[in-house]
């Protein structure tokens, strides 16, 4: 049902990307950036904030209004609608609402302001037709980057046990977590010659995108618990950096443990020596394309799910998502990882190549087939072989 939509959107994306460059002017152009966490969280929200800054740098004259920590636990007096009211009053004609948490409210508010363009990150209301005409969705195609992260972990582990600190369970987190597992499985078998069924991959969901004391599980404790029970590489799927912090602390006490953070290019900084690398979002180029289109009055609705620049996964002017090797990755692992990346880039290896069964054992992707965009986006459960709850 969504297939045509995806094709159409991919076309629009190409067109947008094609006319995204050139000396556009943003004089008098104001856009809003609404973040669920703090703008300097070294994770999800900071990646968006810096994407907004990229727009300001490359669209001369453009101005950004930021509002961070918009969640009812931190700010009971603020609502998305109230913040948008204020941003529109200050002249914003484009507003990024950068969380899954804002999906419903963005659709409601977009109907209230038909002349303002809204971009909700990670939602699918523009794809399903639930959203009004002035609403787009943007998401980075992070799946392969997560597979690379899983691969780096599998190339490094000595105990054969990987732990994934997950946020909450929805389609997005299920498919990203499963991608990491599929990458880890592939590399454990291909490069280390081990039986992939021996690789233990456990997911622990904290209950939200980041830690809310008393409400979610504490990611510090979740990571400690992993490292106490035999896991030696932790992968983070949450918005913030607790996993690498705890692993760094353990490593400083001479434990052989590593971490793979998430979201933000600079996330390795928190414990460089044990950081295997980071799969990161680079929102700048996509945000610039949208902002330029709005500023020049030629924007049209789209649902973007943009992938990496396979020629250079860390080219910040072109790639929507990327991977950056960390200092903790050994030379041998780095060489194998580079091989895996080149095979993903050439299409020789696909992350979602069948046969893939769901966690309950039911067949999902047949042998010889490769998962469609729709199958991946709407993954209903974790995949077979992973430990941890699917619902």
């Amino acid at each position, binding site marked *: 049902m969504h297939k045509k939509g995806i094709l159409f959107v991919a076309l629009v994306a190409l067109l947008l990307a094609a006319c995204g460059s050139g000396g556009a002017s943003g004089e008098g152009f104001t856009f809003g950036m609404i973040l669920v966490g703090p703008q*300097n969280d070294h994770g999800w929200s900071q990646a968006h904030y810096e994407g907004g800054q990229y727009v300001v740098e490359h669209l001369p004259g453009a101005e950004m209004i930021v509002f961070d920590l918009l969640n009812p636990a*931190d700010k009971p007096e603020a609502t998305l609608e109230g913040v948008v009211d204020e941003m529109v009053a200050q002249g914003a004609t484009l507003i990024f609402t950068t969380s899954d948490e804002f999906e419903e409210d963005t659709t409601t508010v977009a109907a209230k302001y038909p002349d303002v363009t809204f971009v909700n990150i990670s939602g699918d209301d523009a794809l399903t037709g639930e959203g009004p005409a002035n609403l787009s969705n943007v998401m980075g195609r992070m799946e392969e980057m997560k597979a690379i992260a899983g691969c780096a972990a599998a190339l490094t582990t000595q105990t054969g046990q990987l732990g994934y600190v997950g946020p909450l369970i929805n389609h997005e987190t299920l498919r990203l977590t499963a991608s990491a597992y599929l990458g880890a499985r592939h590399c454990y078998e291909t490069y280390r010659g081990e039986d992939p069924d021996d690789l233990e991959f456990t997911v*622990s969901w904290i*209950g939200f995108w980041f830690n809310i004391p008393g409400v979610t599980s504490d990611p510090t*404790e979740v990571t400690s618990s992993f490292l*106490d*029970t035999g896991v030696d590489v932790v992968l983070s799927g949450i918005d*913030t950096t607790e996993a690498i912090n705890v692993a760094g602390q353990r490593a*400083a006490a001479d434990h052989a443990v590593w971490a793979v953070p998430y979201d933000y290019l600079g996330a390795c900084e*928190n414990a460089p020596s044990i950081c295997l690398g980071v799969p990161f979002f680079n929102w700048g180029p996509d945000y610039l394309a949208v902002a330029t289109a709005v500023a020049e009055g030629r924007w049209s609705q789209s649902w973007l799910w943009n992938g990496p620049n396979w020629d250079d996964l860390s080219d910040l002017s072109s790639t929507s998502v990327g991977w950056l090797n960390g200092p903790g990755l050994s030379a041998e692992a780095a060489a194998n990882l580079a091989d895996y990346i080149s095979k993903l880039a050439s299409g020789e290896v696909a992350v979602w190549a069948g046969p893939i069964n769901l966690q309950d054992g039911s067949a999902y992707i047949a042998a010889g087939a490769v998962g469609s965009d729709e199958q991946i986006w709407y993954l209903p459960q974790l995949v077979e072989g992973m430990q941890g709850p699917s619902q």
Partner: protein
Amino acid sequence: MDSTQLIAILGSIVLQAAPLIIAVCGETISERAGVINLSMDGSLLLSALAGFVAALLTGSLLLGFLAAAAVGALFAAIVAFGSLHLRQNQVAIGFVLAMLGDSLSAFLGQSYTRLPGPSVPSWHIPLLKDIPVLGPIFFRQDAVVYFALLLVLVTWWFLFRTRAGLELRSAGERPEAAFSRGVAVRKLRYLYAILGGALVGMAGAAYSLSVKIGWAEGHTRGMGWIALAIVIFGGWSPVRGAIGALLFGATKALATLLQRSFPQVALVAFNAIPWLLMIVVLLLVSGKLAAPLLARAPAALRRPLRSLLQAAPPAALGQPLDES
């Protein structure tokens, strides 16, 4: 799970309980002298920030802990001044400070969010670390843990085995009698409230420099209230309080372990355990519920059970004393 893993988990519980133990000792000292410092939740947050920032800027962990202790002492001094000199309600002042400390830490900490920074290095105690089982659990930790363990013993010894401790307790139990015997009740209350507050501050730094390194908004939110409840559970004794903190840590660790194998919805049930436990434990400690239960216990067990379960607060807790 094998025994090494179990020992590793127990070690983590001890580490994560260490700041709570320090805070509980601090509050116990203060309440034993008659001053409730209800500001603990805000005080922990602001001192965690102060400790992290001071250590980050100066590069000295010691200065970090001192800065945090200063913040905690300041909060306690405000509570003490408000109640001992201005005769205002301790609970009200403490509550407002708890709120204010939270907002201040959010505002002032904005630019220090998630910065990598210094942390207390782990240091294994020679000889002791090689004791089977106990060694890896208690003696392959960092200075914060050793400080917490030592603090429990020192506080207990001071409160119950020294003359100064006796005077401290008399200020909280029978201030009029103590005053007439020449004990400077108000001065003592100031002293021990501020000392207790400084320890609470150090507990804040223990979080940001050891147990949950770094700073983020709401970093320790909720732990102050838990510590206050543990003081009651501990029957105003540092040893029992430390056991309470360890038990609390153990339930959380158990919840973290179990939740991996249950659906997401069950996460809620696991996270509810500490709070349900808090209600149950306070019910038992208060005696109203425990009394009928105790009456049914075998006579020989009644006394030890009662002293195990029940505890009464210092008689003059929170009450002012007119010394003029």
